[in-house]
């Protein structure tokens, strides 16, 4: 088991080292900038495949709902951006599809690289949980101790999420029904973050749409598990004079939305800035080589490569930490909403004195 794992890891490392296309492939041509920082974190219509230096792109299907100049709504689908442009009056400008004159894109359903890695992360998370739960159903881990490194790691992570995240933040009798969500989100985000460390892969969590989707799910779970006291504290804060409520209520209503907003921004900005930092530091080599000649490039590479290795180690830690923080804060927010207040005396007295 360990042997195969080691072999797979080694293969992955070799594959990722052999494809140094961290930058946009066509940087050499003409007056394009040396370094395309945003291009590496942006969403693309292809996924890169390891093992090829500049090629190795698999183009993804485009599905677009659009309206033409007469206001008629059309829906077109094609296997790649190029064939989409051939089939429809769309034109390709700077790798992007541009709607014909007078028309506009209503919704772009296209499958993109970030979406692919989002699916990959989520499918891996679901596959691990389902295959592990089958093992526990058979009795491995319940009647005998967990078998193999894989199940042991899984059990440690699961018990950690259940005890330290769910049960310590949510009332005991309610906590267990949220554990599946927390564990899936934790594993999914961790996988997406870790995939982003591969040079040819895309970081799905460095996309605001992905993190916003996850935050919106947390938002809805929070609202639906809100107790009467939760809503009471929002709309009619107990124990304060009525005129204060005029200030408090708007603030509390705003607070419902700012919490998941901060959740989404935190994960997004962390992964985005981490990736930009790596590219900027590696890019110093090429900027120096361009300005001062190749010798300076080699000189700077001694410094840049060492720093990048250290940053990569840090990023593995940050990838897991951010997944943990997202899960923990989701648990805190849900716990705050689902809490049963045992009407403590302070509130009660204040209510009745007023």
């Amino acid at each position, binding site marked *: 088991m360990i042997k195969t794992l080691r072999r797979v890891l080694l293969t992955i490392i070799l594959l990722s080292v052999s494809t140094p296309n961290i930058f946009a492939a066509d940087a050499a041509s003409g007056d394009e900038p040396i370094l395309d920082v*945003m291009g590496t974190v942006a969403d693309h219509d292809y996924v890169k495949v390891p093992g090829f230096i500049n090629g190795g792109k698999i183009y993804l299907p485009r599905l677009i709902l659009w309206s033409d100049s007469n206001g008629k709504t059309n829906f077109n689908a094609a296997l790649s951006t190029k064939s989409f442009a051939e089939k429809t009056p769309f034109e390709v400008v700077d790798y992007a599809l541009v709607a014909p004159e007078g028309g506009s894109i209503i919704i772009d359903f296209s499958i993109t690289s970030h979406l692919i890695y989002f699916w990959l992360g989520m499918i891996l998370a679901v596959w691990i949980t389902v295959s592990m739960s089958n093992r526990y159903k058979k009795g491995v881990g319940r009647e005998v101790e967990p078998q193999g490194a894989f199940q042991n790691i899984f059990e440690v992570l699961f018990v950690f999420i259940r005890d*330290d995240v769910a049960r*310590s933040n949510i009332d005991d009798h309610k906590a267990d029904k949220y554990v599946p969500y927390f564990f899936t989100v934790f594993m999914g985000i961790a996988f997406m973050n870790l995939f982003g460390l591969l040079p040819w892969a895309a970081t799905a969590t460095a996309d605001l749409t992905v993190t916003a989707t996850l935050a919106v799910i947390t938002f809805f779970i929070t609202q639906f598990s809100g107790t009467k006291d939760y809503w009471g504290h929002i709309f009619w804060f107990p124990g304060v004079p009525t005129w204060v409520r005029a200030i408090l209520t708007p603030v509390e209503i705003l607070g419902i939305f700012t919490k998941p907003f*901060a*959740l989404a*921004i*935190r994960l*997004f*900005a*962390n992964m*985005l*800035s981490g990736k*930009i930092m790596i590219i900027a530091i590696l890019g110093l080599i090429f900027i120096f080589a361009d300005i001062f000649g190749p010798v300076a490039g080699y000189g700077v590479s001694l410094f840049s490569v060492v720093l990048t290795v250290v940053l990569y180690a840090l990023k593995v830690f940050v990838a897991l*930490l951010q997944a*943990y*923080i997202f899960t*923990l*804060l989701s648990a*805190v927010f849900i716990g705050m909403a689902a809490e049963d207040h045992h009407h403590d005396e302070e509130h009660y007295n204040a209510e009745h004195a007023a």
Partner: protein
Amino acid sequence: MGLLAAGIGAGIVALGAGIGIGMIGKGATESIARQPEASGDIRGAMILTAAFIEGVALLGAVICILLALGIGQ
């Protein structure tokens, strides 16, 4: 102008976040030194509070990135 604003903004954001997280670290290490048996709870609270500060700081950092790229002008 956007680049200048982004540079100054990023500096101030780093300053604020640095002071905040530094104070959390100070508090946490002091309380762990005083009561080593509670280090697990303290570490959890430390990470949680640091995450809140980080959230605000990253909000500023995102705005700096938007300014530097000239998005929304």
